[in-house]
C-alpha cells in the first residue's frame, strides 16, 4: 500500500566500517522486492534501516512519500518477520499475534476478529492457546507471519524468514508466501541469501555484494543478462561455468576458443557483439551447466572431457568433468533425454564431448568482470 524509496543510503559502523554504499532503489507500491547476496553484503542492514532498527548514516528513506529517517520503528507503520521468528516466549500464540493490536489500543472484539482471521488463513487456529516453545519450526514461522499480517501495515519486511527451516518445509513455506502475498496485496521487501528463493518470489531482485548493489532486475533479467561475473555466478545452481579465453573477430564473425577449441559466436549474440562495438580482448566466458550440450562423439567445436563424478539428482544428472588441461566444468543433463545405454556409459573416466551454443554464452571483460553486452 505504499512505495519505499531509498536515496543514496549509506550505513557506516563504528565510524569506519562501511556496510552499505550509496544505495538507491525505488520500490513500487505492491511490489515484491528481494534483496539477495552472500552473508555480510549489507542486505539485512538495508532492510533493518528501512525498519528503523539501524540508524541511517547517510541518505534518506521515504515510505509513502514521507522521510522516515528520524522516525522510531513503531511510527513507520511496517511489519516485519525475523529470521529466528522472535516470538515472545512468555505469551501464547494468540497474545503474540494480538500484541501489536493491543498496543494500538484496539478494542478486544476487533483484536479477536483479526487474530482469528489471520490464524485461519495460516492454519494455526488450533495452536492459539499454546506457547511458542510448544510449536514446531514451521508453526512458529506461521505465527511470526501472522503477527506481521494482522497489522495491515504499509510495508511487509521479511529477514531470511525461511533459513531456519529444513529443505522440505522451506519449499512448502515458499509457496505459502506467494499465496500470502496475493492475499495481502501490499509492498514486500524480502531478504535472503538463497538465490532460489529470490528467483521464485521476487518481482524484482536486488543482488548485493560488499555493500554495493550489483544488479537490480526481474528474475529473467538477472538470469539471462547478468551484469557482471558476480551476478552470473551467484544466480543459478549449480553455478555458471567460467573459463578464460580470448574473444576474436574475423570480419563480421566472432570467435571464442575455450581450451583451444575454436567456437564461432553466431546468431543474436554475435550480432550484439558487433552492434555494441566490442573490441577483441581477453575475456571470461560463461556458460550455465544446463546450457551445455552433451555429446558422446567428438566433432568440430566440441570440447573433449573426461567424466569425474556423476551425481544422480533424479530428474537430471550433474556431471563433473575435467577438460584436457585439467579445468573442471559442470554439466546438467535431463535424465529423460538419455537412453539407458548412454546413461550406463557415463561412468567415471568416460570420454564425453561438450558443445556450447552461441545464444547461451556470456562474455565478461577479464579486466572489469562486467558483462560486455549488458550496459547501464
Amino acid at each position: 500500500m505504499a512505495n519505499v524509496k531509498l536515496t543514496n543510503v549509506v550505513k557506516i559502523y563504528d565510524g569506519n566500517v562501511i556496510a552499505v554504499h550509496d544505495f538507491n532503489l525505488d520500490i513500487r507500491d505492491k511490489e515484491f522486492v528481494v534483496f539477495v547476496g552472500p552473508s555480510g553484503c549489507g542486505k539485512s542492514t538495508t532492510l533493518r534501516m528501512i525498519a528503523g532498527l539501524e540508524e541511517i548514516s547517510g541518505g534518506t528513506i521515504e515510505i509513502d512519500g514521507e522521510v522516515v529517517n528520524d522516525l522510531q520503528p513503531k511510527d513507520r507503520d511496517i511489519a516485519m518477520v525475523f529470521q529466528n521468528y522472535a516470538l515472545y516466549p512468555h505469551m501464547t500464540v494468540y497474545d503474540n499475534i494480538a500484541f501489536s493490536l493491543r498496543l494500538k489500543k484496539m478494542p478486544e472484539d476487533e483484536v479477536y476478529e483479526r487474530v482469528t482471521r489471520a490464524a485461519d488463513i495460516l492454519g494455526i487456529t488450533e495452536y492459539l492457546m499454546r506457547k511458542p516453545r510448544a510449536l514446531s519450526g514451521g508453526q512458529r514461522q506461521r505465527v511470526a507471519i501472522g503477527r506481521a499480517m494482522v497489522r495491515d501495515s504499509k510495508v511487509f519486511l521479511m529477514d531470511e524468514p525461511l533459513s531456519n527451516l529444513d529443505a522440505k518445509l522451506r519449499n512448502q513455506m515458499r509457496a505459502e508466501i506467494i499465496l500470502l502475498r496475493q492475499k495481502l496485496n501490499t509492498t514486500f521487501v524480502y531478504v535472503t541469501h538463497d538465490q532460489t528463493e529470490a528467483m521464485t518470489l521476487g518481482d524484482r531482485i536486488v543482488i548485493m555484494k560488499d555493500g554495493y548493489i550489483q544488479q537490480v532486475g526481474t528474475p529473467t533479467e538477472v538470469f539471462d543478462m547478468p551484469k557482471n561475473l558476480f551476478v552470473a555466478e551467484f544466480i543459478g545452481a549449480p553455478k555458471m561455468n567460467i573459463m578464460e579465453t580470448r574473444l576474436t573477430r574475423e570480419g563480421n564473425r566472432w570467435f571464442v576458443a575455450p581450451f583451444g577449441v575454436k567456437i564461432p559466436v553466431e546468431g543474436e549474440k554475435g550480432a550484439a557483439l558487433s552492434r555494441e562495438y566490442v573490441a577483441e580482448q581477453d575475456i571470461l566466458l560463461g556458460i550455465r551447466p544446463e546450457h551445455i550440450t552433451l555429446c558422446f562423439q567428438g566433432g568440430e567445436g566440441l570440447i573433449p572431457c573426461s567424466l569425474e563424478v556423476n551425481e544422480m539428482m533424479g530428474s537430471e544428472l550433474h556431471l563433473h568433468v575435467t577438460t584436457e588441461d585439467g579445468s573442471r566444468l559442470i554439466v546438467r543433463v535431463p535424465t529423460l533425454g538419455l537412453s539407458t545405454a548412454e546413461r550406463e556409459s557415463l561412468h567415471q573416466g568416460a570420454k564425453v564431448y561438450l558443445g556450447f551454443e552461441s545464444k547461451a554464452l556470456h562474455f565478461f571483460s577479464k579486466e572489469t568482470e562486467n558483462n560486455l553486452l549488458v550496459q547501464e
Partner: protein
Amino acid sequence: MKQNENTSLKKHMGMKAKTRVSNTIIYIILVLMTIIWLFPFVSIVLQSFRGGPVKGMTNEIIPSIWSLENYVALAKTDFFRWYLNTLIMALFVSVLQTVIVLCMSYTLSRFRFKMRKGLMRFMLILGMFPGMLTMIILYRVLKDLGLTQANAVPGLILVYVASSGMGYYVSKGFFDTIPKSLDEAARIDGATRAQVLTKIILPLAKPIVIYTVLTSFMAPWGDFVFARYISFGASKGMNVAVGLFNWLSKDQINSSYTMFCAGGVIVAIPVTIIFMCLQKYYVEGVTGGAVKG
C-alpha cells in the same frame, strides 16, 4: 575357551569392584563433609538451648540443662530492635537495589549509546578501589545529615542502595542472553522502549529479578563494616551482625555467649528458609555470573 571367559569375567568384576570401592570412598568423604559442614550449625542450635548459670563457653557439646531462657533473655536486650532494623533495611534495599541494578544492566545490555563502553570501563576501574575507603567521608557527611548512630538505618539504606548500580554484571549477563530480536520485534509492533522493558523483557527476566532481590535482601543481614561504622556505638542503630558481634567481645562473652547462639538461630532461620525456597534462582544467577565473568 573357558579360561578366556574367566579372564573377561574377571575384567568385568574388576571394573565393577573398582567403581564400588571408589564410590564407597566418595560416600565416606561426603558423609564426613556433611558432618563437618553441619556441625557448627547444629552445635549453635544446641548451645542456644543450654540453660544453667554458665553463660560462657563450656566443653559441653550437648547441653546438660535444656532451657528456653536464652531466647527469653533476648527480649530484654536490644536484639529485636536490631532485628527490626535489619529487616527494614533488607526490605528497602532489596526493592530499591533491584530497581537500580535492573535499570543499569538492562541499559548496558540493550542500548548502544556513545559513552557505553567508557562507562563500563570506568565502573570497572572504580570497583578496584576498596569501597571501605569511602566510609570515612560517608560517615561524616551522614553525620551532618543526622543519619548516623541511632538513626543509622536510613543512612545505611542510602549507602547500600546508592552505589548498587556498579553490581550490574550478573544481570547484564542474563539480559544479554535474551535475544535482541525480541526487542526489535516489539518495537516494530509499536512498543516504546519503556514498553519493551515492561511487557517483554521483565516477564522474561523473572529468574534474574528474583536473584537480585534475594541477594540484596540477604546482604544487610551479613554486613558488618558499614553497619558498624555508621551506627558507631549506638545500640539503637545497629543491625544484627554488629549487635551480636559485641556479645562475643572479651568482656561480654562470658555472660552472652549462649544468647549469641539463640540470636544467631533466630536470624538464620527465616533467611535460610527464604533462601532455600528460592535456591533455584540463586544457583542460576551464580553460575551465570561466573561463566560470564
